[in-house]
């Protein structure tokens, strides 16, 4: 477990001090994939770089398994960093080395014996799907292949934590998919904690268990991904969720009159996690509160491996009953949002 307490980072900029992080408090559970998302310049890279102390925080503490690493000296930090992997947006591989030699690099740094290095390379190459590229210089690889080398290199010393700074941001959508699947796979297989930085919500939706939203140097919301999708709090988080769930499309359907705004009653969006949790609930509400429910639009998606559904429903009936029905739905931990009320 990683615990970040009251973290603050101030850069001495030439136009005066620049606050990159403030009041950052996070608990990152062991063995999970933890996403940190926010717009460009929010402080994401600064935050992830404090976790291996490439950037020393101005204030606050970071505990890894109970040890405050902000108190470590350089020598202790080097030992710590050998137990952490890191991958980057631009891969940062050594052009003077082949694929195998790049993977060997962190092991050489850690003083691993030649035989053990060889054995580890043999084990890692198939894991990342690069068996046939061992002796290729990295400049000859595609972006996706380069990131696979980056991942193999990051895993070489059997780290317990993997830090990913925009690891898929330089890749095309298909390659992004493949790399995300690989990261998910690694997380499951080795049980290692992955902390992943991105500005793309679909990356969060695809593989993260928990997510923290960062904006202008502050964490604005932190929760499990399913909770964030069904019950977003702040408007920025709502926008992020919206952007990845075809929310725009639904709104356009309403605007264009394809989904009719009811003359009486209410138009609501219900979002639910897990298999078929939505539809039984709707029929139950109809029975219990004597309202009519007309499903206008339905969509099933997945968050990580969990099904995630959205329904746009027209509720008609007595106003009091409708309100009770909405309260009931809320009490069932299903997200509900009133889109239109007559």
């Amino acid at each position: 477990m990683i615990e970040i307490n009251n973290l603050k980072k101030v850069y001495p900029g030439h136009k005066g001090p620049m606050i990159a992080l403030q009041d950052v408090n996070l608990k990152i559970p062991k063995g999970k994939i933890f996403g940190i998302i926010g717009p460009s310049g929010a402080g994401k890279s600064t935050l992830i770089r404090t976790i291996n102390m490439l950037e020393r925080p101005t204030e606050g503490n970071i505990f890894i398994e109970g040890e405050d690493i902000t108190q470590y000296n350089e020598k202790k930090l080097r030992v710590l960093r050998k137990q952490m992997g890191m991958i980057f947006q631009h891969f940062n591989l050594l052009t003077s080395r082949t694929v195998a030699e790049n993977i060997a690099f962190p092991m050489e740094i850690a003083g691993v014996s030649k035989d053990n290095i060889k054995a580890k390379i043999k084990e890692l190459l198939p894991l990342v799907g690069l068996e046939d590229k061992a002796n290729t210089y990295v400049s000859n690889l595609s972006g996706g292949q380069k990131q696979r080398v980056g991942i193999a290199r990051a895993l070489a010393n059997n780290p317990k934590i993997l830090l990913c700074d925009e690891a898929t941001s330089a890749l095309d959508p298909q390659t992004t998919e493949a790399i995300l699947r690989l990261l998910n796979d690694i997380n499951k297989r080795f049980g290692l904690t992955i902390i992943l930085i991105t500005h793309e919500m679909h990356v969060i939706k695809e593989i993260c268990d928990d997510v923290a939203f960062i904006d202008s140097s502050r964490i604005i919301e932190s929760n499990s991904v399913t909770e964030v999708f069904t019950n977003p709090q702040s408007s920025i988080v709502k926008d992020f969720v919206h952007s990845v769930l075809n929310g725009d499309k639904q709104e356009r359907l309403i605007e264009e009159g394809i989904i009719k705004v009811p003359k009486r009653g209410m138009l609501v969006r219900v979002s639910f996690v897990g298999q078929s949790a939505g539809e039984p609930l709707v029929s139950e509400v109809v029975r219990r509160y004597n309202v009519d429910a007309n499903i206008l639009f339905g969509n099933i998606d997945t968050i990580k491996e969990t099904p995630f559904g959205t329904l746009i429903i027209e509720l008609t009936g007595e106003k009091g009953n409708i309100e009770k029905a909405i309260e009931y739905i809320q009490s069932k931990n299903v997200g509900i949002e009133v889109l239109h009320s007559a």
Partner: protein
Amino acid sequence: MLDIYLQTTWETFYMVLVATGLATIVGIPLGVILIITEKEHIYPNAFINKMIGALVNIFRSIPFIILLVALLPFTKLLIGTRIGTEAAMVPLTVAAIPFLARVIETALKEIDKGIIEASRAMGASPWQIIRRVLLPEALPGILLGIIITFVSLIGYSAMAGAVGGGGLGDLAIREGYQRNHQDVTWIVVTILVVMVQVFQSFGDWTVRKIREKRGLI
């Protein structure tokens, strides 16, 4: 007569080679120190950076011919004589060191900051980064710098000949100029031109091969 050309060509080659070699031994560490002591590099130290930078600049701004004369007492002290091939190596080396330091600094500056960042993230020490990252990554640029130094010193060595430094320059001055044997001057110039061409081409070829192997071109 052929003997004298062969011998002086060898002398020139020999003194330039030794001077370049010695300058490389000193210049690489200086170039490395200049780069790693920069702000936000692996060993920031403004004082060392400014001091070595200033020292390098001072020596680089002294014209070679003045350096040649100014160093004569030092050469005498070091080698025991002011004339001859060995003596000429001293000013050549001293002139080449600051030049090489800057050339190597430039080659090291080309390295992507992200690579250094990644090495730090893997727990590499500054020394490991220098030896396993900076120098291998900058190898083509460093080799090019050494070749440029070598080729420049061929020209400088002719000047050293003016103060009895031996080699082709010495021959051109004594035979060509002082005894007015213009043909000797022309042959010496031709040999120098060929030497420069050969070494520069060899250097370019080697560097191109390395870059090709690494998939950089």
